[in-house]
């Protein structure tokens, strides 16, 4: 069985965490790498399957994507949209500064 992907290192976990917008404490990197390697080793079984010439499945049911008129069907519900905001002010979401 070919092994296209090497084992995940602590450094890889750090990178995956960054891409996932999650924080992982340094002392948790290696245990998490071991965890992921356990799962990925099990997933490696998929390499045994002959998938030559097989189309990837993209939808569970054979149907074409429905089209609708490009028209506004909803709106005017600003208060509803803001209702669950952690911070809001005067009809706006309040978020941390992202440009200095």
């Amino acid at each position, binding site marked *: 069985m070919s092994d296209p992907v090497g084992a995940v290192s602590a450094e890889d976990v750090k990178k995956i965490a960054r891409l996932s917008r999650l924080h992982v404490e340094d002392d948790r990197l290696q245990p998490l790498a071991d965890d992921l390697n356990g*799962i990925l080793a099990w997933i*490696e079984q998929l390499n045994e399957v002959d*998938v030559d010439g097989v189309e990837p*499945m993209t939808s*569970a049911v054979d149907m074409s994507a429905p089209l609708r008129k490009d028209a506004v069907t909803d709106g005017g519900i600003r208060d509803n949209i803001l209702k669950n905001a952690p911070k809001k002010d005067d009809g706006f979401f309040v978020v941390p500064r992202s440009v200095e």
Partner: protein
Amino acid sequence: MTDLTKLTLEAALGGMAKGEFSSVELTQAHIDACAEAGKLNAFITDTHELAIEQAKASDARRAKGEAGLLEGAPLGVKDLFCTEGVKTCAASKILGEFTPTYESSVSANMKADGMVMLGKLNLDEFAMGSSNETSAYGPVINPWRKGEDLVPGGSSGGSAAAVAADLCLGATATDTGGSIRQPASFTGTVGIKPTYGRCSRWGTVAFASSLDQAGPIAKTVKDAAILLESMAGYDAKDSTSLNVAVPKWSESCGKSVKGLRIGIPKEYMIDDMPVEIQSLWDQGVEWMKEAGAEIVPITLPHTKYALPAYYVVAPAEASSNLARYDGMRYGLRVDGKDLNDTYDRTRTEGFGDEVRRRIMIGTYVLSAGYYDAYYLRAQKVRTRIVQDFENAWQTCDAILTPTAPSAPFAVGRKVNDPVKMYLNDIFTVTTNLAGLPGISVPAGLDQDGLPLGLQIIGKALDEDTVFAAASALEKAAGFTAKPEKWWA
């Protein structure tokens, strides 16, 4: 008066139609049962006052001759379905006190049919789990007990436990890899995942969009059919919703299965299968034969690859779906030193261990360089699994298998071994990958007196046959056992 909580949904609807009792009386009986059952931790949010108001309105509608399909029936709703004005949190801290200003299409259909909602049911966080132990609101405890607390299965553990304990007449649930059927098997209840696209996903918190499908957990096969008739239906707001008619599935229950060809897949005879599950499956074969069905050996050669494929596809879709929880527009926000730090802290504190683990697996398998090796390959394996079923339908009309590889296990038993936990879904996950309907029917007890289920899998859109076969199984099994009421 008889205990109204012991009724089936069908009997309760009949009793109200005949004026034997009102929805208010029926609802109050269930509220009293819920109030005694705190130890089960089946509900995250109770809506008892609202339920009484809805029951009064329902009785008024019935008096005017305007009774809907579920008129006045007290039901539970899994806390993955958005409910207008009622907190919906998917058992996650990251949604905080999120209170939708809209209603999911499935629960809206049920409300329009007269549902009385008792509350929002506990689940695994974002439906990720097979034991209901990943909930931020604590584990649900199975009403079935053996010396120690047992899990109710998952992710729809609250739905299954509440129905098994007679806290509600039926409940909504969702199934991404087995989350309706495995808890149904663990609690002696009936659960069906219909064909993908039957129930709208609009307004249901997303986990893995190409696999997620709603369905009911109920006391009987007929009750499940009645509930599904209400839940299903075309919805333009879900682009994968199927624009097909919703049959009267309740009329398929009890239909003869004479001449029906039932496939038995040899690949489901796994190593380490408990003897009792194998013999229950053999018994199921005998029951179907006695009911006039023809038994056909079949092969589904890619079965063993279904779970590994699922654990690529589901985390990949979950990592995309859960990217929306950024602490900006709703739910939890944990302030950090800058925007990125706020994202990191919010998501790290807001998501539990299993959800974080799956987001990271998903991010990894979708990341540059690995997409082809993992995600694309898994999607091709998924096509192979679909082809297996298409070949099987050449010689059979439905498939009979066990629902789960074990009886309910003790709380805490598998929580530290993800792969072992994932194996719970070994018999159910294939139908999610292929989009097919599957139902679990309680069929017997193991030597410890714990329930075990059998599964019927059908062709796409052929829930008719699934319900007919399931009700034949139900009739032959004559499963009437109930858990001892230790929690009250």
